[in-house]
């Protein structure tokens, strides 16, 4: 097991501060900064379709990070994450429409409101574990879904609700090119906050609750508080993600926030790596881009000899859905620890290449 992170020889840490940085080495930090800079340049050379995919990765990634804090780091389970995501979306639209809160303020406020809802549904979590908790969160999913459909004052009912685009100092972020930057900034900020949380007191407490709750309690950690809190934090991220989604599409409709969407969130973090912040983003990107990849693959196949021999025709669309499922299954079989783990191994391999022993 390549557990120990590999640090180049001669790279000595001479202070505790330099030993507790987010990125273990200067190179990895510089690469991350370079990555963000590259993303900043994206609108210049990517078309609108690709930008919309990146924006999707952004807001879904924020919500998925919340779920990973809950499931991956605290060891709870939730199959109602999309309901919180939806609540954030509606809450932000509602704040803007009914209270004329500026959008820039409504997004974080929606996060706070969703936190409140998350805390309410987190209360049973302090007492339930495993499958029982899963059922309790399933109830949350359906209760909230029902609420969305009935609360006309809040969600506009089945007709849905309009969400204004974000405007800052008279500048409207109403195109993909412009909104891309909003999502990018939000994502970077939320990921930094998440990373910091996990390396400070309460983040460690969450992981301690996951790894061994009995000894966590002996270490002075209040289990009830942290289990509930974890739901709150997770809902906060979901709310922010949902609010960003609402002001991107500028329309929120009730049908989107189904259990299937919740399971997709779970898929993202499982594929990315439970308990890995970087992995969350990788998993989200994977889940968003995989259908695109499969679409391209089916396009290649259609019209070729395989297509005619198997007489696929319109069935090729189903083939695409099936292959997405297949890839996910294969992924879980061969990489149960997620993309983050694989990425670590690849890095270790290249650091040691060609003398890997």
């Amino acid at each position, binding site marked *: 097991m390549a557990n120990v992170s590999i640090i180049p020889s001669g790279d000595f840490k001479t202070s505790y501060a330099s030993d507790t940085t987010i990125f273990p080495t200067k190179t990895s930090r510089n690469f991350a900064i370079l990555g963000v800079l590259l993303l900043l340049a994206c609108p210049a050379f990517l078309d609108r379709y690709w930008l919309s995919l990146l924006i999707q990765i952004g807001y879904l990634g924020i919500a998925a990070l919340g779920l990973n804090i809950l499931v991956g780091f605290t060891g709870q389970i939730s199959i109602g994450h999309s309901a919180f995501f939806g609540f954030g979306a509606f809450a932000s639209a509602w704040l803007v429409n009914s209270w004329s809160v500026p959008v820039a303020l409504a997004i974080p406020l929606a996060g706070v409101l969703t936190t409140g809802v998350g805390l309410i549904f987190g209360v049973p979590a302090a007492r339930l574990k495993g499958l029982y908790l899963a059922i309790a969160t399933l109830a949350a999913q359906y209760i909230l879904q029902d609420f969305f459909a009935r609360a006309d004052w809040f969600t506009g009912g089945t007709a849905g609700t309009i969400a204004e685009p974000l405007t800052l100092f008279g500048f409207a972020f109403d195109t993909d090119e412009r909104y891309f930057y909003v999502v990018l900034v939000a994502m970077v900020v939320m990921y930094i906050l998440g990373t910091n949380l996990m390396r400070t007191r*309460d983040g460690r*407490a969450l992981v301690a609750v996951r790894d061994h709750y009995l000894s966590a309690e002996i270490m002075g950690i209040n289990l009830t508080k942290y289990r509930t809190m974890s739901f709150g934090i997770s809902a906060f991220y979901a709310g922010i993600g949902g609010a960003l989604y609402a002001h991107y599409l500028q329309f929120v409709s009730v049908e989107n926030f189904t259990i299937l969407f919740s399971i997709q969130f779970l898929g993202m973090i499982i594929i990315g790596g439970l308990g890995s912040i970087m992995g969350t983003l990788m998993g989200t990107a994977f889940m968003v881009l995989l259908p695109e990849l499969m679409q391209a693959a089916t396009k290649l196949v259609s019209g070729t000899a395989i297509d005619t021999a198997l007489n696929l025709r319109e069935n090729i669309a189903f083939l695409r859905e099936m292959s997405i499922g297949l890839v996910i299954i294969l992924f879980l079989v061969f990489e149960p620890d997620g993309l983050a783990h694989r990425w670590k191994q690849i890095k270790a391999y290249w650091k040691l290449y060609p003398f890997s022993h």
Partner: protein
Amino acid sequence: MSGAPVAPHPGPAQNSPATQAETIFEARGVNLRFGGVHALTDVSFGIRKGELFSIIGPNGAGKTSMVNCISGRYRPTDGRVYFKGRDVTGMTPNHRAALGIGRTFQNLALFGHMTVLDNIMVGRHHLLKNNFLTGPLYWLTGARKEELAHRREVEEIIDFLEIQHVRKATAGTLSYGLRKRVELARAIALKPDLILLDEPMAGMNLEEKEDMARYIVDLNEEFGMTVVMIEHDMGVVMDISHRVMVLEFGKKIAEGRPEEVLADPRVRRAYLGEDDDEEAPAAPAAVVPPRKEVA
């Protein structure tokens, strides 16, 4: 501080002079029952401040149950426990940790996926002030400064227990002896006044036992912690403890200085299995079924 509350439970008279020095912990008439099983029956004792106190007894005698009653994992069915003069009987373990009770477990209970460093940092939980709001704003709220200050103290514990070489290793990948040491480090990080060690030397070789015994004595003498230890290695127990309590079938059968306890005929019979009178081997012999059913 000592004996501030009046005993609500009459309990048996304290035959040991527990009030001689300041008593840090006191159990009065503790009973613990699981359904029909009497894990502890009317156990009363006091632990003096600065003492190295051992609990011994045969397997299933209730030693770990007693320690669980001290740390708060179990709540006595009957009787009360006092820590620093406060009645802590109904207090949750996390609350007791903040009051100054730390412990290690008989079966390893490390946070397996965390690094050794993080494991020990978890021990600082109740001493740290940053929270879910200030922690994420690492650089702006002083969380960084606080974390680094505590890191420094954790490093001192790491130095003391000589686990520098594994500080960045994942706890779950360590060898048994090292894990035991990390667990001790984590308990020390709590800065407890009373530290409970449940079989700290189980499964160790002679050299590791010697090291561990040295750490325990240092904890007691240099760090000034009161130590409660459950241990089966009688050599270690007799060498380092100030006082020993012996449990058998959930009852206290002896308490006192090691040599006194060792001389007690009941202890010898119950635990050490020496000096059996002639009726002792005869009694079980009658109950033993004939061997014919053994294939």
